[in-house]
């Protein structure tokens, strides 16, 4: 059976997520502006935490916890958008039962 192209593409996405421990930890553009202009403290913490800040909880090795969070998120997003698209796709060309 010919391998589905998207299966390979999904593996590439997981590989991309594996580089996440190498990401810059500097504040992003908005955070930088909020710090410089003195309104960073107006921000509120989330009322609950699941995989907060892309670090999977309970794993001591932070690089591993980050990669795991990345893989989980990548798979969730694939499933979520695939599911939404599958539900929404036009069915007008399919025969009526």
């Amino acid at each position, binding site marked *: 059976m010919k391998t589905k192209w998207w299966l390979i593409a999904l593996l590439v996405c997981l590989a991309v997520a594996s580089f*996440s421990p190498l990401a810059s930890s500097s504040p992003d553009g908005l955070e930088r502006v909020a710090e410089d202009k003195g309104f960073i403290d107006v921000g509120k913490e989330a009322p609950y935490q699941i995989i907060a800040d892309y670090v999977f909880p309970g794993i001591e090795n932070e690089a591993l916890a980050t990669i795991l969070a990345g893989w989980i998120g990548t798979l969730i997003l694939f499933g979520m958008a695939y599911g939404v*698209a599958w539900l929404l796709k036009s069915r007008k060309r399919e025969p009526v039962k």
Partner: protein
Amino acid sequence: MHIPDGFLNIGTVAATFVVSAGGVGNAVRVANKKLGEKHVPLMGILAAFIFAAQMLNFPVAGGTSGHLIGAALAAILLGPWAAVLIMSCVLIAQSLIFQDGGLLALGANIFNMGIVASFSGYYLYRLFVSMRGENRRSQLIGGFVGAWGSVFLASIVCAIELAVSGTSPIQVALPAMAGVHALIGIGEGLITGAVLSLVLATRADLLQLQKV
């Protein structure tokens, strides 16, 4: 550019929620008409890629980092309404599961990085390609231009929201946000161009899919 809770006042939260709900609702209607079998796996892959790539913050000048938004890339490949759906999936998951972007700020984040970035990226790309011809070179440069513009415009809209909320005056927020995102947008442009180049080399047919 994920806005946390607390940065926006209740009026801005409500207004952006209403506009984004309307935008997503319309995206659902358009997708219902135009989305075909072949779009489905590409929607999943783009959402997965955008999530993964958004984790890879790259350094820009002065102890600041930026990361891909991805709306322009999604819009160029699939069309702006499909991109709104993809970005909404990414932003909802990031807010609910990864505590990146506030729950109340979700409407604003979908408006900025979903709607504004998708449409500006898409039409800047279209404009460029229509002027310079449908060839590889103009598609890649058009991708860079669309991606850069999408980040720049989204940051300006974000600054306006901060100003309207009374968090930071417009004459402070606007130049600061636009300035730093003019730099981050270069990264967005380069990544978008690189991915488009990869798609053109391996699956050029994907660019021929009907735009949604």
